């Protein structure tokens, strides 16, 4: 049985008593409402334990898709914490809300027609210039990325640096929700990564060569031979195929060259 005094946080002693009494339930406050949940659960599983069937705010359940951005506070502290609900373990008395969607500015552009420079960034995201360096974005990143640092790099036109620093971004949007200058940091990062991949990093020459070789029909006959081979032949070819050693140098070449 529980009392209706649910809006209050629960004293430390009582939590200890409660954990001793019934497995390991602890109180958390989902959007201000108290639920008692097992202490080992992630916030995401705690929602489900509490009775929610998640539609919004649940994706990969593995910390990479950014669907379950969550903000929370602990009692007696003004600090806003952030985390991904699928990755963050519940704590007693946490006050939390998921932010499954936050409106963000996103420019549409033609990648093949733009240049990898600061003018492009300011054209599509003029608000970039409004960054006041408050660092709230960095403090609110659940992936611990140096968000403000990559925004500074963007302002300098160092697009490759933006790409590198923003690479592990899961595009959850918390930075955007907290930014007083109304930037969409993660969309700026996305644009810079695509510019880097297409224009700044050199093209793979060997890749173009292989595509040309395939288009010339070089492998049609050898592949046809494999496609029509009987099982015994195929097994033999498979077993006898030459293995590139783990420690081999990049330019290692096999003995058999007729199918290259």
């Amino acid at each position, binding site marked *: 049985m529980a009392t209706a005094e649910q809006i209050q946080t629960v004293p430390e002693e009582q939590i200890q008593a409660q954990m001793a009494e019934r497995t390991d339930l602890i109180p958390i406050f989902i959007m201000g409402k108290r639920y008692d949940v097992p202490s080992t659960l992630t916030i995401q599983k705690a929602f489900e334990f509490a*009775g929610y069937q998640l539609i919004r705010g649940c994706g990969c359940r593995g910390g990479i898709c950014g*669907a379950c951005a969550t903000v929370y506070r602990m009692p007696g502290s003004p600090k806003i914490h952030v985390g991904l609900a699928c990755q963050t373990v519940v704590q007693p008395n946490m006050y939390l809300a998921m932010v499954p969607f936050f409106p963000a500015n996103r420019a549409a552009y033609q990648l093949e027609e733009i240049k990898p420079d600061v003018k492009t960034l300011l054209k599509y995201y003029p608000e970039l210039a409004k960054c006041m360096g408050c660092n709230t974005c960095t403090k609110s990143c659940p992936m611990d990325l140096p968000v403000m640092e990559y925004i500074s790099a963007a302002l300098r036109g160092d697009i490759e640096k933006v790409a590198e620093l923003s690479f592990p971004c899961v595009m959850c949007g918390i930075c955007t929700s907290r930014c007083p200058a109304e930037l969409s940091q993660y969309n700026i990062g996305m644009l810079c990564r695509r510019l880097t991949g297409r224009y700044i990093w050199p093209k793979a020459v060997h890749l173009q060569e292989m*595509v040309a070789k395939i288009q010339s029909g070089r492998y049609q006959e050898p*592949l046809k031979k494999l496609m029509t081979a009987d099982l015994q032949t195929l097994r033999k070819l498979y077993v006898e195929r030459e293995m590139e050693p783990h420690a081999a140098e990049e330019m290692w070449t096999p003995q058999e060259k007729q199918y290259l």
Partner: protein
Amino acid sequence: MGYTPELIELIKKVEKTRPERVERKKASLEFPALTLDERQARLEKYHPDYRPGGLRELKVGPSKGYALALEFADILESRSRVDPDKIDLNEVHYETDVLVIGGGGAGTAAALIAQEQGASVIICTKLRHGDANTMMAEGGIQAATKGWKDSPYYHYLDVMGGGHFENDPELVNTMVSEAPKVIAWLESLGCMFGKTDDGTLFTLHGAGTCRKRMHYAGDMTGAEIMRTIRDEARNRVKDIGVLEFSPAIELLTDGKGRCSGAVLYNLETEEYFIVKAKSVVMATGGSGRLHVQGFMTTNHYGATGDGVVMGYRLGVGVRFLHATQYHPTGAVFPEQAEGLLITEKVRGAGANIVNIDGEQFVFEREPRDIESASIIRECTTVGKGIPVPGQPGKFGVWLDSPMIDLLEGEGVVEKEFPAKFILYKRYGIDISKVPMLVYPTLHYQNGGLAYKPDGSTPVPGFYVAGEVGGGVHGANRLMGNSLLDIMVFGRLAGEAAGKFAKERDAVGELSVDHVRRFHKELEEVGIGKERVSPVVLPDYGNPDVKKRQWTTTYVGTLR
């Protein structure tokens, strides 16, 4: 947090054998791989697919008589979520040339290429655009791009060997021949594959590969591909519309056997919508959330096998669906990370798999089914698994990630596996210093709907791409071939569907007669109304809460 004192003690045994194992690796002295015959014996004895009572023959539909995992047989032998007589086909809510069902990698690639054929496209997707297993694929994408040591010929051999030579040769030929083109396409879209200063792409080994041809972007290869092609789709917003939180639950025909759209369900408002389309690409992905044999899964929340159900009712047969892939290395500790995928790239980079005594018992780059079966063997018959703290009866083995820094240099683990490094750090575990505790986890649907290299099926206007389809991987997919599969066949299906739509006359009357016929078949074999599918979302509800939901009606797992 971090490892328990018991585990810290056991890790010392791993540390003790590590220097010698690193030296052997440096000298390319690998643990002996199993022969083909030994592989078969190990599978039959230890792989979950071979467990007695795990499969059941289908009683209805185009693949009647084919034995599948019970969980899969159940959803194929189920009724539609909606009574076909209640579906109002007169009011069409959306009309498009190409409808793509599924907003993951295959679907998005299909949408882009269909649009390039001049088609208008709608993508409908269960969750958000990009919420898919694609996003979670970590290790890489295979392609023979290095002509001095590799070619599609060797890629073909690897794929066939991994799939136990049962794969569809036409599909494999297409996949390995298209692979380098796909990498070039992604490069032109700005996808950041790792490369050297002169542009040479980084490549690694994967399990079952004879050449290093795994291209990667950190340990977020799938995420990088997904967000890049999604971004491109968003740039083409005028021609590619996206309906989120709107899974398809049934296909539509024109009554003359041509696929002509789908019924969508808005998860938020609980309305149904009719989409009329000249062609349909089914790209709903896999089914890990069915939890076959009760296994934990690495899969996305929405991976419930919906596309197979819809396609099967439409009359498209399935193949290789009896074969479920268990990824050898899913996290089992800490509990919060249970089931999470630890990419095979960790083993590709040199990390051994070792038992409680720090001994190797399997070559770490066996094909996935062999590797998984070997780990299950070590934890059961051999009895040298590591007990998982707090979970009596559960065991794992060590994945010795610190070897990578010793082999490749300090900091490589953090640089090459940023996502997993951060994740474990949150739990107080530094994977560049201590190994990870892992066990096989449900990972991939090897089979699915039968299709041709251009994605076409016996039903005109109905195309299949990606994990929902079956054939290219045979009974066991190799690492790095799923991202490749979805890109190759997503593009080809998009092209074919786009062309089909351009050539097709206006779609006439819509029909769900195929659903009525399927229901009749179910009734004839005595299958009642108790089961509905597609599943749409897994049921992780709290039974205590459900008991108190006095006025709630559930249809399947949904309210």
